[in-house]
């Protein structure tokens, strides 16, 4: 992790935008019960206030056929978002698919904690990396099961005469 400059030209220490995108994605894909279980092991973070209570809405998912076609609206999906602020002023945002408000709240809380230098390393080691591993295994398992059902089609050359 390296320090980067954000759009305002201010230096952020400790984490880069890409890191945050990664951990927010992992938190969003994690199961709520895993986050909840981890919360109990966490040293006291001093509480937090909501800036935006968890709220459920829709987000348009856009697609592009074959990676080269024109973008089209694939459909809307349910999204829950939430923002909160730790006692020291750090702001965390959570955006998850579905309508689990508690999951969203926890995602925002961990997003805020991960921005703080004293929590980041520990959280990466004990929460983010294991969650990512778990998610990758699950995805691999699914694609392996799907791959097992693959059927090879081929067509014999058909002579008309």
């Amino acid at each position, binding site marked *: 992790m390296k320090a980067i400059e*954000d759009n*305002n030209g201010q230096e*952020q220490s400790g984490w880069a*935008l890409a890191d945050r995108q990664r951990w927010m994605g992992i938190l969003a894909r994690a199961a709520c019960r895993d986050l909840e279980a981890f919360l109990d092991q966490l040293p006291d973070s001093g509480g937090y206030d*909501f800036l935006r209570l968890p709220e459920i809405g829709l987000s348009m998912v856009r697609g592009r056929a074959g990676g080269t076609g024109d973008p089209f609206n694939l459909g809307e999906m349910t999204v829950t978002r939430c923002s909160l*602020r730790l006692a020291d002023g750090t702001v965390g945002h959570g955006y998850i698919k579905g309508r689990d408000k508690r999951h969203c709240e926890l995602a925002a809380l961990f997003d805020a904690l991960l921005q703080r230098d004293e929590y980041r390393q520990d959280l990466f080691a004990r929460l983010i990396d294991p969650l990512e591993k778990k998610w990758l295994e699950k995805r691999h398992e699914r694609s392996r099961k799907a791959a097992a059902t693959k059927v090879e089609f081929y067509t014999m050359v058909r002579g008309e005469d």
Partner: protein
Amino acid sequence: MKSTDMDLKPAFSDPVMDSTESYRVIMQAMAKPAYAHEFPLEMDVPGKIGAAAGQILLTMADGDTPLWIAPELRDSALDLWIRFHTGCPLVERPEEATFVLATPETALKQLEKLSTGSPEYPDRGATVILVSKMIKADSGPVCSGPGFKEPRRIDFDGASPALWSLIGESRMDYPAGLDWLLVSGQSVAALPRSTKLEDTTCM
């Protein structure tokens, strides 16, 4: 991003009920113009605009209502707060704005350019939220029109004959025109374009 985030303050603690309550105050203010109505909810709004202006924006502004803020009211914490909680675009030119946050001083210089709508589309006229130190009821022009049982007077700190005539002129092309919300702390008094102002020159 990280450092400016630190300045972000919360808005309504119960968005649905609080904005409903605030909407009611604004509606009452428009229905009974030139009269100071109080917002019951106290709120810590960043910058110098006060709780009433903050609640009006939280209730009325959204992604479809461009907002122009007068330079002397601009404040990075306020910009961030408005963008985060309302999602409304902040524009650089007053003529593009649906809502305008101004003080009596800027109102005179900048507001001639505001969109007043047209007879076909009077709804495109802008709403000016005028931030002043105090709203007064014992001086100023005599107001009458829809919503008045009998004429009332309204005045505010920083008002000048030139500004009153600008406010008066903004309703000459009725139904096109500007709506004005005078705010000060927790109070709001409306001057919708239907309100007639008399005596705007001799104060």
